[in-house]
Each structure stands twice: as C-alpha cells, then as structure tokens.
C-alpha cells in the first residue's frame, strides 16, 4: 500500500493550524516512526492518515486514489484496509473478548479463534478475557486495543504512542508483530514523543514533526 499526504493543512477551530502544509509519502511496506514533542501535531497527522479526520486543505491519496474525492462505496472499501490505534484506548462495554472481536464483528467477518487465542496467549490476556474491559489496567487496555487492531490485518496500521504503559517484554512482542505486518506488505506508522529502544533498528524512516510541520525526514 502507498499513502501520500499532499499539501495537508488541518485546523480544529478555523484559526490555529495543527498541521501546516504537510507533504509526506509512505511508499512501500515498512515501519515509519513519526517523532515530535507534545502538541506537534502527531495525533492529528495520524488521524488524517488513517482517514478519521478530513483535512481542512490538501489531499490524502491511497494507492493513487484521492480518498476524500471518492464516493461512499469506494471510501468504505479503502477504509477497511486502514486501522488506527488510539493513544488512550477506546474500549466498549462488555468483556475483553468482546472488545477484541469488535472490529471483526462490525465488519461481519468470522472470528478466527486460533488467531485470537494466539494473540491472547502471546500478550498474557488469557486471565482477563472474560472480565469487563472497563476493569483493566492501563497497560492491559492498551494491549487489548493493539490486538484488536492486529486482528483486522490492516494494510495501513497507525499507532499513537503504542509503548505507553507497556512493560519492555510486551513492547518487544509488539515490535515483533509490527515488523510482521510490515513484512506482509503493510505500512506501519508509529507516533511517539521519543525514540524507544524497541524501535531502533526496525524502522524504515524517521519523520520529525515540529509545530505541525515536517522538520526532518531521514532513512533509518
């Protein structure tokens, strides 16, 4: 999958801009790291990239198609290959298992029990899978939202501060899975305010964002 942002500007209030003339291309699979201080526009950029926010100006192109110019049916089709994992996990009422399966259920896809079990075991969620999602610790909630995203096998996976609240063992497991997504042809974009040790050596490109603008871009 190829994703391109062309002259993207975005403002929430019409006065101040969270993104200013951003031009970025994610050509080909790999792990891309978006780095920048708090308030630099990382989350907004990820949401624009993940087709959640329509930018105030500019274009978002997926495999050459200008997303926001497409009709509803074409948008739905393209959107189904994109997943965004929030900084603060949004979990719904119900058990952990229900939350893990939510994306698949909404898409009307049958849940592959073997794959689900694999992730549940891998991230140590077995003991809590029948418990209410609202009673999870911050780290567990984060893991549930990560696994929920991974289960959808996205072609573009955007993660906002994915390592917050995770211990180093689970952070390493997550990096392994993200590399696996990239190896399968997916684009993984990670927003973080500092370069975690888990990301060193596996990222294809590091993009620095400062005050809503791309300050630098270097191959890792």
């Amino acid at each position: 999958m190829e994703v391109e942002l062309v002259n993207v500007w975005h403002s929430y209030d019409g006065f101040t801009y969270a993104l200013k003339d951003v031009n970025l291309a994610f050509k080909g699979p790999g792990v891309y790291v978006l780095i920048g201080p708090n308030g630099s526009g990382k989350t907004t950029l990820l949401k624009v990239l993940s087709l959640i926010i329509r930018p105030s100006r500019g274009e978002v192109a997926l495999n050459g198609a200008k997303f926001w110019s497409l009709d509803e049916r074409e948008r739905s089709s393209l959107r189904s290959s994109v997943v965004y994992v929030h900084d603060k996990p949004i979990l719904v009422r119900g058990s952990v298992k229900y939350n893990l399966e939510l994306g698949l259920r909404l898409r009307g896809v049958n849940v592959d029990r073997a794959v689900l079990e694999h992730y549940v075991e891998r991230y140590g969620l077995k003991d809590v899978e029948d418990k209410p999602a609202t009673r999870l610790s911050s780290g567990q909630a984060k893991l549930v939202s990560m696994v929920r995203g991974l289960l959808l096998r996205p072609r573009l996976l955007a993660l906002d501060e994915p390592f917050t609240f995770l211990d180093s063992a689970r952070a390493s497991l997550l990096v392994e899975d993200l590399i696996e997504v990239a190896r399968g042809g997916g684009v993984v974009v990670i927003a973080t305010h500092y370069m975690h040790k888990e990301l060193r050596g596996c990222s294809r490109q590091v993009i620095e964002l400062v005050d809503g603008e791309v300050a630098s871009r270097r191959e890792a």
Partner: protein
Amino acid sequence: MPESILSVTLRSLYVSSTAAFIAFASALALSAILARVPRRRAEMALGVFEALVGVPTTVIGLFVYMLLHPHSPLGFTRLLYTPIAIIIGQFFVALPMAFTSMFRPFYELRESVKELVLSLGCSEKLATKVLLGELAPVLTSSYLLAFSRAIGELGVALMVGGGIEGYTSVLTTAIAVRTSIGDYEVAIQIGLILLCITISLALMLKALGERVLWR
C-alpha cells in the same frame, strides 16, 4: 360496586408505561438531533429541560387541560377525561426526566464511538449500532426514571383524567379519592402496590442491565 384494585393497577401500568415509552422515544430522537449541534447550544437546551423536571405536575395538568378543553383548539378530539388525556399529560411530565438522564452520556459517547468505528476501518454508519449498545444501561435507566415519574404523579391524572372509577382511575388518583373519603386501609394498600411496582421494576431492570445486557 367499587372497582377492584387489580383493575386500577393494570390501567395505571398501561397508561404510565405508554406515556413513558413515548417520552423515552421522543427523548432519544431529541438527543440524536441535539447531539449534532455545537456543545454550547446543546447545553442550553439541556438546561431548559433540567428546569422543566421541577415543574409541578399540576401546572402540566393545567396546560393539557387548556389544550383539550371542549372550547380549546383541540377540543374537538373529545379526549379530556379519557385515559389518552392522562397519557398525553404524563408524556409531558416524563419527557424532561427521560431527556436529561440520557442526553449527556449520549452526547459524550457519540463522538468517541464514531471515532472508534472509523479507527477500526469501518463505515461511520455502524456507529449508531455501537452507540446504542454502549448506551443500553443509560437508556434502560432513562426509561425507568420516565416510568417512575409518570406512574407516581397525581396532578395530571386528576386534572385531565378526573379519576373516574372504572375508566380513568389510576393508582395515585385512587389513593387520593380513598383518603378523602376516609378509606385509609384501601389507600394504604394501593400505596404499597405503587411502591412495590416501582421498586420491583428498578430491581428487574438492574438485573437485566447486569446479566442480559452483558456481552
């Protein structure tokens, strides 16, 4: 022969549950409409309804009476002193309660659910389904509050229903009538029935919220 307590109870349940349901459905529709307006305006609308919660039921009764009186614009409907008149009145009594109890959670969850659905690569249209699932406990208690407010009010039932035995007499008017004629024993019995209905309904819905609505 005086009307049996069972008959009055059944009428009360029918009238109040109908009024509460219409109020609940209207509150849901109103919430869906107001959830699309800017927060400040929505809060203003909420403030108006919060104020209306405290309006005495006799004032609402007077308003509905004026509306349905034979010489009023809706007089031709001949609904005054009928169970439908009580339903209309109780609808106005229950609506502010139903709306104020559901609107804020509705407003706050709507945005996050929409974002969740989009973040999972799904169409925005699916957000309504997820939102209703998320709001199920809130909606359940909202209906319960509307019903409790409707079944427990006296002003409307007396003013536009008239407490006619065998026709518009409901639990609260029956208590008032029995007390006024000194029949305290029956009045207390009916009072206890009213209390049992509201408490058992609350417990039933709570159990429903914890078990059936669990997923």
